[in-house]
């Protein structure tokens, strides 16, 4: 075992290498824009240079003269598309701002023309030569701009159901022995997945194939069909590999139906590879948020009152909302809680999910405030969390299915060396560097959704698993293969996995960290169907008992006395008895509490996730604790984070290798979010200015010399058959606050606005 492949503890699978490792490192993995097309035309986008106003006219003369140009599509000649509803209102789209529909412009970088040419180069050159005359109106850029409107989220956004409240906050806060009121800001951020927002559309008669990085092939297939007014069965989305998603590819963007429409008109496949900067405006992003936290506590640190008010920016057209108070009001024991989330509308593209959408900004606020409270109480911040730890969430009193928060704190504190910290701010240094230690809780809801799977077992043990899941880099192939191998008792090398294709059985969106729980639960169920069929053939009068289900795989020797009576299944004999050489089973699984229409919705590309705080009589979250060391140069004020340590508990860890990798990436992203990442908006024009990788900073290796991930063993029998809590979005939640808390410890200066840059350090 190595650091990259941690020794599995109880309730963990084997750290087998990635199923797709060789394909990826040798460049054989095919991403959307790698897919060979027959005589494609190449599209290049022209996007708007204003955020609000109208197009007066285009001058296309110069552009059309570029050799190889086939067509230039603008609102004047674009294929007519049906409007699509926002995903949170029962549709598929991440925005209802439909480009190329009229001369109106609703945000910076809106698609205003598509040049189609014989080569990418010709399309790009012609796009550069398109001249546009605008009538620009003054846009509202963000929170403080004139012309924005603000209203409560509840009632505007169907998915935002509650402003959690309990007890009498006002009174309790008034009477509290220790009080804290503080405001926090988080910036605009963009996902910037490595793979660009490409799409390729190829028609064969009336059938459309789309090659595109998507985190939800069923959603995209149904959404595009709706926009094109064709039968969803005519559309197939294929993406065996997705070069990162982070939420940016969960809902449909307008580009796909536009390119599909153009391809139809040309009767030729069309391939679009937008630029990095276009990705900032043709897809979603994390909008800026503001928070006010009020905490009241008794002298011994017990919370008596908590209020979290959040405000978020969205577009004029759509009331997108992340609304993280459902988590922050339930994280700690507190009898009097109040909350409110509002949406501020500006002339921006519609924001959307970005890795741990609500928890990242909302826990930054709460976990910073907890640290401030600890300072006020003169208490160790770890102990403050311990004092307020709880087995039941305070709003409805529902029990957590499992909660290892303090176990995580203890493990991470030990590994980090928290006991070496001298509590006073500015009390630790090393040469020219001030040193600070900080910590924060992290958590993420455990979610799962209805999922189907097909499993085929051959006489020679070769197994094929089919499920329209998504490999966004998380390790989906690997753990699906592991799950099938385990459940059927066949060697891992004999399992082939097919995902990323909407012709396969439906799976939910790869979002909300539900994929492992959903896909593996479905695969387990269908593997059991396969085994059941073989058992029946050999032992027509017996059924596959629960005992055998748990302990006996095909071809495996039973390990317990009880299981021995069920006799292992001899594969050859079973197939002989069955009189066939292949068993293939299809099944549909849904989690407890999933709505009645789950399966129907699953096929039509609608997600019915259940979990987190929304479960009926319980609440399910994964937890962790994060510790960071920051160093601040006394002279230059440069801020570095040489050590990030996190301990996490997330139910069954399917594969410690892929889990560690997700959590490590999360810690690094969390650091990046705290210290580097912000999309700068020009307030006058409501345009993104640093929309490229040279100016939108993400960490390089030299920024993260020490990242340690500790996986805790945790058994949870109340969540799903796989026993797994999602962990893809767990680690980047706490880091923002942990970094700011460490900066406070290093400097004595509390910074409540992200990202923290050297100019924010006072002395």
């Amino acid at each position, binding site marked *: 075992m190595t650091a990259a492949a941690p020794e599995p503890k109880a309730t963990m699978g084997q750290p087998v290498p990635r199923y797709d490792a060789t394909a990826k490192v040798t460049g054989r993995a095919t991403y959307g824009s790698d897919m060979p097309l027959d005589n494609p035309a190449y599209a290049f986008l022209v*996007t708007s240079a204003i955020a609000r106003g109208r197009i007066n006219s285009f001058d296309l003369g110069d552009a059309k003269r570029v050799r190889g140009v086939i067509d230039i599509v603008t609102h004047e000649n674009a294929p007519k598309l049906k409007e699509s509803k926002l995903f949170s209102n029962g549709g598929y789209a991440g925005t209802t701002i439909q480009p190329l529909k009229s001369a109106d412009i609703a945000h910076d970088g809106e698609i205003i023309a598509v040049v189609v040419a014989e080569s990418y180069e010709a399309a790009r050159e012609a796009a550069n030569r398109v001249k546009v005359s605008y009538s620009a109106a003054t846009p509202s850029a963000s929170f403080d701009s004139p012309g924005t409107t603000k209203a409560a989220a509840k009632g505007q956004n169907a998915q935002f159901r509650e402003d959690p409240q309990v007890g009498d906050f006002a009174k309790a806060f008034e009477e509290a022995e220790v009080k804290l009121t503080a405001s926090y800001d988080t910036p605009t951020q963009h996902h910037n997945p490595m793979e660009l927002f490409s799409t390729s559309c190829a028609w064969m008669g009336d059938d459309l194939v789309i090659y595109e990085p998507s985190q939800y092939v069923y959603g995209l297939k149904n959404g595009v069909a709706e926009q094109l007014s064709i039968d969803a069965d005519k559309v197939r989305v294929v993406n065996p590999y997705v070069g990162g998603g982070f939420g940016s590819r969960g809902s449909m963007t307008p580009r796909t139906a536009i390119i599909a429409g153009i391809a139809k008109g040309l009767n030729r496949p069309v391939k679009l590879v937008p630029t990095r900067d276009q990705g900032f405006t043709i897809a979603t992003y994390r909008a800026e948020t503001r928070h006010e936290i009020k905490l009241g506590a008794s002298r011994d640190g017990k919370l008596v009152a908590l209020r979290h008010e959040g405000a978020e920016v969205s577009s004029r057209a759509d009331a997108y909302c992340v609304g993280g108070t459902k988590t922050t009001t339930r994280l700690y024991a507190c009898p009097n809680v109040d909350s409110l989330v509002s949406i501020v509308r500006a002339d921006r593209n519609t924001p959307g999910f970005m890795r741990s959408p609500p928890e990242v900004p909302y826990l930054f606020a709460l976990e910073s405030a907890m640290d401030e409270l600890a300072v006020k109480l003169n208490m160790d911040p770890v102990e403050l969390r311990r004092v307020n730890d709880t087995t039941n969430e305070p709003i409805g009193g529902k029990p957590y299915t499992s909660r290892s928060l303090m176990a995580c704190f203890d493990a991470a504190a030990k590994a980090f060396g928290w006991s070496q910290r001298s509590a006073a701010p500015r009390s630790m240094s090393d040469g020219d560097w001030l040193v600070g230690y900080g910590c924060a809780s992290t958590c993420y809801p455990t979610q799962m959704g209805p999922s189907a799977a097909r499993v085929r077992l051959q006489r020679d043990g070769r197994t094929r698993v089919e499920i329209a899941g998504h490999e966004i880099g998380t390790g989906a192939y690997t753990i699906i293969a592991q799950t099938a191998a385990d459940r059927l008792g066949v060697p891992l090398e004999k399992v082939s996995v097919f995902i990323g294709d909407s012709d396969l059985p439906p799976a939910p969106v790869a979002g909300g960290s539900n994929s492992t729980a959903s896909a593996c639960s479905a695969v387990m169920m269908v593997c059991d169907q396969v085994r059941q069929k073989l058992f029946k053939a050999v032992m027509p009068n017996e059924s596959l008992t629960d005992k055998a289900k748990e302990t006996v795989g095909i071809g495996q020797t039973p390990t317990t006395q009880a299981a021995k009576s069920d006799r292992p299944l001899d594969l050859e004999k079973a197939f002989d008895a069955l009189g066939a050489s292949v068993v293939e089973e299809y099944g549909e699984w849904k989690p407890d509490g999933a709505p009645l229409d789950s399966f129907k919705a699953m096929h039509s590309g609608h997600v019915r996730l259940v979990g987190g705080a929304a479960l009926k009589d319980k609440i399910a979250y994964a937890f962790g604790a994060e510790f960071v060391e920051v160093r601040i140069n006394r*002279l*230059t004020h440069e801020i570095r984070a040489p050590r990030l340590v996190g301990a996490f508990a997330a139910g069954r860890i399917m594969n410690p290798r892929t889990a560690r990798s997700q959590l490590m990436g999360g810690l690094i992203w969390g650091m990046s979010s705290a210290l580097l990442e912000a999309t700068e908006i020009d307030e*006058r024009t409501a345009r993104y200015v640093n929309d490229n990788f040279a*100016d939108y900073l993400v960490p*390089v290796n030299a*920024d993260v010399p020490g990242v340690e991930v500790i996986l805790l063993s945790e058994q949870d029998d109340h969540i799903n058959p796989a026993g797994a809590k999602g962990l893809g979005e767990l680690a980047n939640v706490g880091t923002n606050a942990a970094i700011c808390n460490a900066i406070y410890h290093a400097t004595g200066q509390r910074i409540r606005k992200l990202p923290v840059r*050297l100019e924010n350090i006072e002395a």
Partner: protein
Amino acid sequence: MRSFSYQRATDPGMAVQALSADAAANNPLTQATAQPLAGGTTLIDLMKLDVMRPAAIVDINPLAQGWSAIEPGSGNLWLGALAKMSDVAAHEDIQRNYPVIADSLKLAASAQLRNMATLGGNVLQRTRCSYFRDVSYENCNKRNPGSGCAAMDGVNRMHAVLGTSEQCIATYPGDFAQALIALDATVEVTGRSGTRSMPFAELHKPPGNTPEIETSLQPGELISAFVIPGRWPRSVYLKARDRQSYEFALSSAAVALDVQDGTIRDARIALGGVATVPWRARETEALLKGRKFDDGLAQRAADAAFADAKGRRHNSFKIALGKRVVAHALQQAVTMEI
């Protein structure tokens, strides 16, 4: 990017000829119809962004044989314009006798870029001003003379506080040029009428009323070499930036000192990340020369460097930062072991 013709230079004369073919259309030089291609890490980027639109590219890499020497001779250091950043940074003599040069190169860009990029191209790299690099912004006097400056009241955290004008506040982004200007380098220029030499300090032009004119090079002129007089073992390049590597300077200082018995006999200071051109801090040098070094002196000297600095909405912090960087670099240079 727009279509262009591509030619490989066979010898300096041919390159110069090809580059000056259409002299009438070649003004300002940055918008010349023919451009030389070295490592391409600036030029090709700007062509892809549609900022530079040359009709002809003259690839000067075939001249490398004559133009990429690294010669630390007895008196002078001779650096060919086509030497790669990585080769110069890794050169032992340079690390020993000119640490400020080695470090200014080593701390720049990424390993991959340094392997491609040449010294000549490096000093001629163009500003990273986001409004300059995005042609969808009309107001950029540098790219579009007379159109205004979007950065002046826009997002200008990375912009300059020294050497600015009412027309342009774009930062000169490079690192190596600070070492050259500090060390009184000369630049050797090959043109139609042969080779001429000029002080490196005269190569770059502050923006003034013509930010589109960035250097004193004429169409058809190529940089063939840099010559650095003397040796400067007591020299440092200090670079403050948002991340640990692969990032332009928020503020940097090239410092070279000649210290004897605690007294500064000679001081060379240049500033990066804060000025519109490679910036020699002569006031600072004057304050230091002939004095004994202490922290108070370092502070006064650093203050002097920024006496005329003008901050704007997001970049005022660079004034305080720049001073601390200069003081810190002076300390490092004084205390370094040589």
